C-alpha cells in the first residue's frame, strides 16, 4: 500500500502519442506541473511507434512521417523540470475528487500494488483503435489489421507476409500499403470500399491543407512505382485458406456498400491487412458522463468546445478522441488544449491550423463512412465476436426472435462483446446487426482489465 500522500499535479495527460506529448510539453512551458501517463514504456503512442530495442534499427525515421517532430517533442519533455513521463501506467478509470481527479492506474498484472495519480485537471489523449468489420475468413491466420501491419513493421521490422492485399476503407490503407511496399512486400491490390469522390465535393477544404495533398500524393506515387493496383468501391468479401490465408475474393460494391453479385474475382496472397478507419477511445471520459457526438464517419467522439473542454468540468480532450483526424491535428489540439488549461491565449495561427485540419478530418470521415450494405457479405456462420465465438446467426436470432434491438441487449443475450477486447473489435458490427440507430457510446467502467487484488487495494485507501 502506498502510504505517502501522492503529489497533486496541475495536469495529468493520459496518452503519450502526438496529442499528449504536445500537450505535456506545452503545458510545462506555460508553467504547469504535469505528468504524462501511458501504458507503453516509451512515449510516442501508436503513431510514433519505436522499433523494439535489440533489433538494432538504425533509421526508424524511414518508416515514419514526422519522426523529427517526435524527437523534438521527446527531447523537450526529457529536458523539462515541470513535466514527468510515467511509462507502463495503464489508466483504467478516472474518478472526480474534491481537488480534481484521481487517475487510477495499473502497472500491469504482475504489479503488487495499484497506483493513483492525483491532478487538478486531466487531458484525455487516448487516441483511437481500429474499426473492424467481419467477413467470412477474417479470423484466419495471416489476416491482420491495417494498423497492425504497420505496427509490426514499425516495432518489429517484420512483414505479415510476402504478398499482402490491403483492404478496407480510410486513409490508413494508402499509408499502410506504401510502408509495406517500401519494406519490400508485394502488394497486389489496395481494395478501398469508398469511392474517394467524397473528397472532391469540398475542394476548398482540401486546398486549405496542402500538406495533406502532398502526403497523399507521396503515398500514391510510391504505390504507382511499385505497380500497386487501387480498387475503389470494392471490398474483400471472403478470405480463403485452411491453416492460413491463401487468397481473397474481392467484389465491387454498390453505393451503400452492398456487394454486387457477379463482380467477384480472386486474388492470391499470403496475408491480408484490413481496416475500416479508426474509432475514438473515449471510455475514460464517458464513464464520467462526458457528452458525445456522432461524427460523419458514424464514430462516437467526445463533444468539446472551441477550447477543447469536454462537458465534464476539469476534463479536456485532444486529438483522435475528438474525432479521428491524424497526427498533425493531434499535435495542434494538444498544444491548443494546453493553452486553454493554462489559461493562456493561443496564437491565432494555431487556432487557424487546427480549424483547417479539423475540417479536413470531417471531410475524410464522411468519405469513408461504412455503408449499411456491408452486412451483405456476411454468412450465417461468420463469427462476429471472435473472443466469444458468436456467429451472425446467433445475433440475428437475438434480434429477430428474442426482442433485442440494441447492442447492449444483443450482448446480454449472445455474449458478443464480453470477451477480452470488451467489444472493441465487434462493437461496430454488432451495433449494425442489432439495427440500432444512433447508438450511444460503449460503456466500459474499467478501461482495461485490472487484477482483483489491485481493485481490492482501493477499498482501504
Amino acid at each position: 500500500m502506498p502510504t505517502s500522500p501522492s503529489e497533486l499535479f496541475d495536469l495529468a495527460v493520459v496518452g503519450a502519442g502526438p496529442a499528449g506529448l504536445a500537450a505535456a510539453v506545452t503545458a510545462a512551458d506555460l508553467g504547469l506541473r504535469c505528468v504524462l501517463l501511458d501504458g507503453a514504456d516509451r512515449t510516442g503512442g501508436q503513431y510514433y511507434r519505436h522499433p523494439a530495442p535489440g533489433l538494432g534499427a538504425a533509421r526508424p525515421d524511414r518508416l515514419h512521417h514526422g519522426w523529427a517532430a517526435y524527437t523534438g517533442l521527446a527531447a523537450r519533455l526529457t529536458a523539462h523540470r515541470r513535466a514527468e513521463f510515467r511509462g507502463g501506467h495503464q489508466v483504467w478509470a478516472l474518478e472526480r475528487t474534491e481537488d480534481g481527479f484521481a487517475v487510477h492506474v495499473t502497472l500491469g498484472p504482475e504489479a503488487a500494488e495499484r497506483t493513483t495519480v492525483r491532478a487538478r485537471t486531466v487531458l484525455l489523449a487516448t487516441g483511437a483503435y481500429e474499426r473492424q468489420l467481419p467477413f467470412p475468413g477474417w479470423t484466419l491466420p495471416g489476416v491482420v489489421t491495417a494498423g497492425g501491419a504497420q505496427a509490426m513493421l514499425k516495432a518489429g521490422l517484420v512483414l505479415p507476409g510476402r504478398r499482402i492485399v490491403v483492404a478496407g476503407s480510410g486513409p490508413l490503407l494508402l499509408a499502410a500499403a506504401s510502408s509495406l511496399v517500401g519494406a519490400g512486400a508485394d502488394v497486389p491490390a489496395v481494395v478501398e470500399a469508398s469511392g474517394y469522390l467524397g473528397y472532391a465535393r469540398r475542394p476548398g477544404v482540401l486546398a486549405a491543407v496542402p500538406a495533406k495533398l502532398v502526403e497523399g500524393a507521396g503515398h500514391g506515387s510510391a504505390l504507382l512505382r511499385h505497380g500497386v493496383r487501387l480498387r475503389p468501391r470494392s471490398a474483400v468479401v471472403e478470405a480463403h485458406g485452411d491453416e492460413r490465408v491463401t487468397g481473397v475474393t474481392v467484389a465491387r460494391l454498390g453505393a451503400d456498400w452492398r456487394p454486387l453479385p457477379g463482380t467477384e474475382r480472386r486474388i492470391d496472397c499470403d496475408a491480408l491487412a484490413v481496416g475500416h478507419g479508426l474509432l475514438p477511445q473515449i471510455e475514460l471520459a464517458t464513464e464520467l458522463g462526458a457528452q458525445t457526438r456522432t461524427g460523419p464517419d458514424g464514430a462516437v467522439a467526445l463533444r468539446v468546445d472551441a477550447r477543447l473542454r469536454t462537458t465534464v468540468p476539469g476534463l479536456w480532450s485532444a486529438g483522435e478522441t475528438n474525432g479521428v483526424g491524424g497526427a498533425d491535428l493531434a499535435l495542434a489540439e494538444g498544444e491548443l488544449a494546453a493553452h486553454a488549461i493554462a489559461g493562456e491565449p493561443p496564437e491565432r495561427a494555431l487556432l487557424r491550423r487546427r480549424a483547417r485540419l479539423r475540417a479536413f478530418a470531417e471531410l475524410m470521415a464522411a468519405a469513408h463512412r461504412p455503408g449499411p450494405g456491408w452486412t451483405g457479405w456476411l454468412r450465417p456462420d461468420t463469427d462476429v465476436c471472435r473472443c466469444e465465438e458468436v456467429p451472425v446467426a446467433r445475433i440475428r436470432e437475438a434480434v429477430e426472435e428474442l426482442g433485442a434491438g440494441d447492442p447492449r441487449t444483443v450482448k446480454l443475450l449472445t455474449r458478443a462483446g464480453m470477451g477480452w477486447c470488451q467489444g472493441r473489435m465487434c462493437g461496430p458490427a454488432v451495433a449494425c446487426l442489432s439495427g440500432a440507430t444512433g447508438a450511444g457510446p460503449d460503456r466500459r467502467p474499467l478501461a482495461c482489465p485490472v487484477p482483483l487484488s489491485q481493485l481490492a487495494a482501493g477499498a482501504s485507501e
Partner: protein
Amino acid sequence: MVGAGVVGAACAYYAARAGLAVAVVDRGPVAGGTTGAGEGNLLVSDKEPGPELDLALLSLRLWRELAEQLGPAVEYEPKGGVVVASTAAGQQALRDFAAGQAAVGVSAEEVPAERLHELEPHLAPGLAGGYHYPQDAQVQPALAAAHLLREARRMGAELSTGETVTAVERGPDGAVRGVRTDRRRLAAPAVVNATGAWGAELAALAGAHLPVLPRRGFVLVTEPLPRVVRHKVYSADYVADVASGSAGLQTSSVIEGTPGGPVLIGASRERVGFDRTISHEAIGRLAAEAAALFPVLAQVAVMRTYRGFRPYLPDHLPAIGEDPRVPGLYHACGHEGAGIGLAPATGLLISEQLTGKRSELDLAPFRADRFPASTDPLEKP
C-alpha cells in the same frame, strides 16, 4: 404488461398460458433495466421464514418446470449455495437461521470447517464453518426474460419495445381502461406494473402511491476461468445486508462461477438514487471480500463491472396483486435483489388473480396500499 424485464416476462408468460390476450410494452429493450444487470440468483438460503420465503419456494419449483420447458438456453443451474461463517458466533447464527427455515421446507446441511473444502476446494483456510443449501439455483437473467417472452409470443402475446407508456387511463368509476403510449392507445381492463425500480412512476400515472426506491449495486466480472467456484458462495453478512434498510454502502460478496467461464462477484447495496457513477469504494470492497474468501482470485483479472438498480420497498417485500385503490391496476414490482428468483411465482399469482382463480399464496403481505402516503417515493439520498 408494462415492463419487459424478467417479472413482466413471467407475467406475460403465465397470463398468455391462461388464455388472456396480452401486450407487453417497454420503453427500453427486453431485459434493459435491472434484469440485464442481475446475477440470476434463485435463492432460498438468504430468506427468513415469512411471505418472501413462501414466494421463493413456489418460484423455485416453477423455475425447475420452466427450465425443462425453455431448455438449456436460459442456463439454469441447480448448483446449490454455500454460506460461510468466519467466526463461531457467525456459525451459530447460521445454525439458528437454518433451523427456522427447515420448519417451512428449506433444506440446509451444516458443513463443519474441515469439510468446507470438499464443497469448495479454493475457499480460504480458517473459516468457522458453513451451511449448504442444495435448493439454491441460478439462471442467466436476460436470456430467461427473453425466452419467457418468446414463449408468451408463441401463445399470442404481443411485444413492443422502445414504446413509452405516458398515461394510465381510468374510467369514471376509477377503474383502469388501458394505457396511452407515445405511439398509440392500448385498451385493456387490466394493467400490470412490472416496471421494477421505476414502479413508483407508473403507479403515480395511475394515481397510486407506491414508494419503490432504487438501491444501487455493482457486480464484478472476472476473466474466464476453469471452474474454481462451484456453488453460489457468500458470507453470513450477506443476509444482514439484504434485510438492512440503511442508505449507506454495504457489501457482502456473493461469488459464483458461470457456464461462460467468468466468475461473478456481487453485489454492493447503497441508496443513491439512479446515480450511475462508478463507486470505487464499492467495487474495491467487493474485490477485497472476494479475495478474502477465495485467495486464488487475487491475481485474476477483473474484465468489467456493471451496475444496476434494485427496486426496493421499505419493508423489503414486493408489491404483488391488484391495487385495492385502483381497480384494474396490478403491481408486480419491488422485488429488490430477488426479482429473477421470484419472477415465476409473481407471474403465476398475477395470472391467477387476473383469471379469478384461487391464489396459491396469501397476497395480503404484498398489498400495494400497505405504505403510509407520507413515504415519498422520489426521496433523494
